[in-house]
């Protein structure tokens, strides 16, 4: 019930030390990590996401090592028939398939992972495709996160720090971008992207092009938040004090204002990453996102849905589950970060 005034806590420490109690200082990082660890779901989410990032990063290496199958190749049985729509089975599966090794057909027993999630209508391993599909989602998440964090922070802080003309014109521009209907515009761009002749091929059909597209449409919300933070922080006494001490604009922005505005930036960016992954999946679901043969979860749900109608449920279930759990993890992490970074929360010494 004591008021968390600065003076009283200092004298409390003094008193405690006078009475011979040892007091260890609590740093900002300690506070942050303690609070984040208290948020169990966020911790589980962080571990899950870390695991996922490692998995999709090493996926090509795993493929060359033969641990998982080629996501683009059909599995074929000993007689050369494509193994279409095989239901999931464990390592005791009796299915054999062949691979062309040095021009020779070699019969191979299904690896333990080949059919763990079954095969799709082209006989490709759903397990491999779910892992490789994660690459598209995570690339979109990371790239959109970077673009939004950079653009949103840059534009928001410029608008918030330089009132008047700069602020007015930047915020009009932000309002304009926010006024664009995201999904309809993204669908148009996604549709025509592969047909624009002068674009390099990696932009046309891959996840990077989609990521850039979403990123450039989605920074407006963060810019507004950062501007509001800057507007209020600019008037705070500690900024006045820094200015009185002769600090320049650069120092004030980078040393005094930006660090205090970090928590909304981090939280908002996390939430946008989740939304971006959903939008990419939706575009791919509609066929206007990442183009085949690159596997994506959105396209797999679309195809899996068509298969599920015929009773082959596994492609949709596994790809859908991967998508939902990834976005869920990101949202839980965002929630945990929000709690952990909130400076108004207090933490009691135990």
């Amino acid at each position, binding site marked *: *019930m004591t008021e968390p005034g600065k003076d*009283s806590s200092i*004298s409390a420490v003094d008193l405690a030390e006078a009475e011979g109690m040892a007091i260890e200082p609590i740093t900002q990082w300690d506070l942050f990590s303690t609070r984040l660890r208290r948020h169990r779901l966020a911790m589980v989410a962080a571990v899950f996401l870390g695991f996922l990032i490692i998995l999709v990063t090493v996926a090509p290496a795993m493929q060359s090592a033969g641990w998982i199958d080629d996501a683009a190749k059909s599995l074929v049985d000993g007689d050369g028939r494509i193994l279409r729509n095989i239901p999931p089975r464990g390592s005791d599966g009796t299915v054999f398939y062949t691979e062309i090794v040095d021009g020779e057909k070699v019969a191979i027993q299904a690896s333990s992972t080949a059919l763990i999630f079954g095969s799709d209508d082209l006989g490709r391993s759903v397990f491999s495709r779910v892992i490789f599909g994660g690459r598209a989602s995570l690339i979109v998440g990371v790239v959109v996160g970077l673009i939004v964090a950079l653009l949103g922070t840059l534009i928001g802080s410029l608008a918030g720090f330089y009132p008047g003309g700069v602020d007015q014109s930047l915020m009009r521009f932000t309002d304009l971008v926010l006024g664009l209907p995201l999904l309809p515009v993204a669908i148009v761009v996604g549709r025509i992207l592969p047909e624009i002749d002068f674009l390099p091929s990696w932009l046309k059909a891959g996840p990077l092009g989609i990521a850039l597209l979403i990123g450039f449409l989605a920074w407006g919300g963060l810019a507004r938040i950062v501007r509001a933070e800057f507007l209020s922080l600019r008037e705070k006494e500690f900024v006045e004090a820094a200015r009185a001490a002769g600090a320049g604009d650069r120092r004030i922005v980078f040393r005094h204002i930006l660090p205090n505005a970090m928590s909304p930036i981090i939280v908002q960016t996390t939430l946008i990453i989740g939304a971006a992954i959903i939008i990419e999946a939706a575009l791919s679901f509609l066929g206007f996102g990442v183009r085949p043969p690159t596997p994506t979860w959105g396209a797999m749900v679309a195809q899996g849905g068509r298969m599920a109608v015929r009773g082959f449920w596994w492609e949709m279930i596994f790809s859908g589950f991967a998508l939902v759990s990834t976005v869920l993890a990101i949202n839980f992490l965002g929630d945990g970060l929000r709690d952990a970074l909130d400076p108004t929360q207090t933490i009691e010494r135990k």
Partner: protein
Amino acid sequence: MTEKLLKIEDLRTYFSTEEGVVRAVDGISFDLEPGERRGVVGESGSGKSVTAMSIMRLIEPPAGEIVTGTIEFKGENLLELGEDEMQAIRGGKIAMIFQDPMTALNPVYTIGDQLVETIMLHQHVSKKDARGIAIKALEDVQIPNAPARLEDYPHQFSGGMRQRVMIAMGLSCNPDLLIADEPTTALDVTTQAQIMDLMLKLAEDRGTAVLLITHDLGVVAGFCDTIQVMYAGGIVEEGSVEDIFHNPQHPYTWGLLGSMTRLDGKHRARLHSIAGAPPSVIDLPVGCRFRPRCEFAIDICGRVLPAIRPIGEGDQSVACHRAEELDLKTLDVDVDHTKEVAS
């Protein structure tokens, strides 16, 4: 002796938090005569507001709970009343006004709506009559152009004016007891004085008893008949304003008085401050709760919690083992003791 208006015995209100049980009010007892104006003084967290909220029975379970005690109001134990009966008392017999007038009024209803609502709740009158009473109440608190201002929203009033509206709302049903929780803390000094004068006049005219919760001893001096000083959930000293101000018996009261700015020129030298911070009400120290900050503490203070007991000829009571041997009023409060204790 007349019947007591309010008689509180051994009231304990605890809150359970993540960190442990907060003993916000821990065994306090006091009485209030009809028409008596009593100041409740103490630092933040000493349990003043929780006492008030307990009387109003506005402590929200499950976090907060009145563990034991009785609150007798006009011979009736409020803690045994049903919720319906309690609602009739709240705002009707006991009214309360709060610290921050800027946020205590609902922003989306007009002042008139909120006043009329209160009046119609406790007096069985028509809406038209209630409006008349509301206008009268606003005029009583000296709000100019009262009929027109009924139609205004809270944000159209200044802070002082809003506190007048709160007082009007509190007094509109002629309560026997008005609890004012730091009514002037959020206001500037000139407005403070005006509001306190107004409250004094209205309370005297109507014979309303007032429980004034504040940390400002200056406000108490001009307004109250009696004072109780609270520290860490308990009452450490109580008595008439004269006794407490001229003859403090508890080192904490003495320290509080020493920290006052004096305008009579007697003690100009240096303001006194009490070293350290109030104890956490979760881990209360064994023995006297003020001991860690008390410069007169001796062995017994660390072992036994002093009970409150009468002292001297008047109505003064104190909870200090050494009250008789210490003659605090002869000590020069201007000496800066803080360093010796802190280092």
